[in-house]
C-alpha cells in the first residue's frame, strides 16, 4: 500500500460559476484513462450522467467507473467525505487512488474548501493542495464577473483557467473575456474547452512543472500597464528582482502582509532565488493560506531572477512593491521592471 499511495495525496479543486461547464469538463475528464488512479467528489451523480460508464456501484454514494476512477457524491461535510475515502483506501476497501478531485458548487467561495484540506487535523497529514481549475463561460462569464464577487474570486485563485462554450460566443466576446481573465489572473494558463485538446494529466498535475508553465504565460500576458488597470477592483502585480531574497525576512514580511490583508490578497505566487539555496523555491498562497514552500529541482528557464505575482482586491500594487523591497532589504539598484522581461 505504501508504494501505491503517495505520502500526501494532491487535491484538485474544480470550481466555476453556476452553468460555467464544470460538469461537462468533469464528464470529459472522467472518461480519460489518466484518471484511472483518481477519486472524484462530485455534487450529484444525476447531473453528470455516468450510467453508461459504470463498472460497479460500491454503495449509494460511491461508484467505480470503467476507467478505474472512483466517483463519490458529497453528503454533508466535505471533510467527512474525504476522510471516509481515505479510511476506505487505507483499509483496502478501495483501490489506492493517487489523487483526489473535488467539484465545488457554483456559488462556492473556493477558500473554505482549500482551507479544510490544509487545516483539518487528519486531512493535512494525508492530503496536500493541488491545482484549482476554474471554468468560465464565454457567453455569460463577463456578466457573472460584473455581478458576482464569487465568480471573480474563483478566477483569481485559479491555477488553470478553462474557457468554455466558446463555440456559442462570438470570437470578439471570447477574446474580450480572455483579456479580462488575463488581467485578473495573469499567471494561470488559459485553455479553451472546445478548441483545445485538454490534457487531463497537465490540467490536474501540480508538480514542479506547474510553476514553469505559468511563467511564459506571464511574460506574454502582461504589458507594463497591466498592473495599474482596474479589473473588478482586482489588480495583478508582477514583480521581478535580480538579487537573492532573504528567506527569513521574506517570511516575516509575507506573514505580516497576509495577517493584515489576507482577505484582500486573493493569490500570491512566486518563484524565489533564495540566498544560499542552489535551486529556486516556489511560494503559493490563497488568501491566508500558504502552501508549504516547494524546493524546485532546477530553474525553469535559466533565468535566475526571483519573480512574484500578487492578485489583490483594493490594494495599491505600488505599495506592495515598495513594502516588499523595504522589508526584504532589496537594494535600490535592483531591477525596477514590474512585468516580465520579454
Amino acid at each position, binding site marked *: 500500500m505504501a508504494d501505491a499511495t503517495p505520502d500526501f495525496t494532491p487535491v484538485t479543486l474544480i470550481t466555476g460559476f453556476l452553468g460555467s461547464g464544470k460538469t461537462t469538463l468533469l464528464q470529459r475528464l472522467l472518461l480519460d484513462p489518466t484518471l484511472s488512479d483518481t477519486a472524484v467528489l462530485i455534487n450529484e451523480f444525476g447531473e453528470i450522467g455516468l450510467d453508461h460508464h459504470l463498472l460497479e456501484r460500491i454503495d449509494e454514494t460511491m461508484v467505480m467507473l470503467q476507467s478505474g476512477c472512483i466517483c463519490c457524491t458529497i453528503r454533508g461535510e466535505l471533510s467527512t467525505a474525504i476522510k471516509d475515502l481515505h479510511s476506505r483506501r487505507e483499509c483496502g476497501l478501495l483501490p489506492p487512488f493517487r489523487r483526489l478531485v473535488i467539484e465545488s458548487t457554483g456559488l462556492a467561495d473556493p477558500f473554505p474548501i482549500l482551507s479544510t484540506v490544509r487545516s483539518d487535523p487528519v486531512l493535512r497529514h494525508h492530503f496536500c493542495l493541488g491545482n484549482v481549475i476554474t471554468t468560465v463561460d464565454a457567453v455569460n462569464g463577463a456578466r457573472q464577473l460584473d455581478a458576482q464577487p464569487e465568480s471573480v474570486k474563483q478566477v483569481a485563485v485559479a491555477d488553470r483557467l478553462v474557457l468554455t462554450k466558446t463555440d456559442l460566443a462570438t470570437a470578439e466576446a471570447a477574446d474580450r473575456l480572455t483579456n479580462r481573465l488575463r488581467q485578473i489572473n495573469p499567471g494561470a494558463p488559459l485553455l479553451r474547452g472546445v478548441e483545445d485538446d485538454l490534457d487531463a494529466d497537465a490540467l490536474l498535475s501540480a508538480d514542479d512543472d506547474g510553476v514553469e508553465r505559468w511563467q511564459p504565460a506571464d511574460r506574454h500576458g502582461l504589458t507594463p500597464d497591466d498592473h495599474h488597470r482596474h479589473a473588478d477592483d482586482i489588480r495583478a502585480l508582477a514583480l521581478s528582482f535580480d538579487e537573492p531574497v532573504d528567506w527569513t*525576512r521574506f517570511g516575516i514580511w509575507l*506573514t*505580516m502582509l497576509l495577517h*493584515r*490583508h489576507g482577505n484582500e490578497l486573493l493569490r500570491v505566487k512566486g518563484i524565489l532565488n533564495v540566498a544560499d539555496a542552489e535551486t529556486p523555491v516556489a511560494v503559493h498562497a490563497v488568501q491566508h493560506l500558504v502552501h508549504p514552500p516547494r524546493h524546485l529541482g532546477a530553474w525553469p528557464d535559466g533565468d535566475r531572477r526571483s519573480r512574484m505575482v500578487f492578485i489583490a482586491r483594493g490594494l*495599491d500594487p505600488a*505599495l506592495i512593491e515598495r*513594502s516588499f523591497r523595504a522589508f526584504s532589504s532589496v537594494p535600490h539598484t535592483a531591477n525596477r521592471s514590474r512585468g516580465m522581461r520579454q
Partner: protein
Amino acid sequence: MCALCGVLGGTEHWTDAIARPGVFTRHTDAASRRRERMNRVAAANRVLSCYRMNLADWQGSAFVLSSATGKTEIVDNLAHLWMAAERLLGRPCDPLDEELIALMERERG
C-alpha cells in the same frame, strides 16, 4: 502532543515546515533550526523595533514578545506573532503603512 496544553499535533507554519521531500525548509537539523530561529528573532525585531517592541527566543520552543511598557506575551510561531503584537500595541501592524515603510527604508540605508 504538547505537554503543556494537550493539543494534539502542533500547527505547522509555512516558514517552519517539517522537512520532507520537495518542501523547502531550514527545519532540518538541530544546528540549522537554532540558526534559523536566531535569524527569525533578528528579522522580526527589525520590524518590531519600529513599534518599540521586542521579540526574544524562549527555550527554543516559543518566543516572548514585549512592548515598551513591559507588557509581554508568549507566541508559538510567526502565525501568532502579528496577532499578539496588535493586541499589545492596541492598533494594527500594517506592512503597507507608508510611515512604517519609510522607517524600514531608512533602516535599510
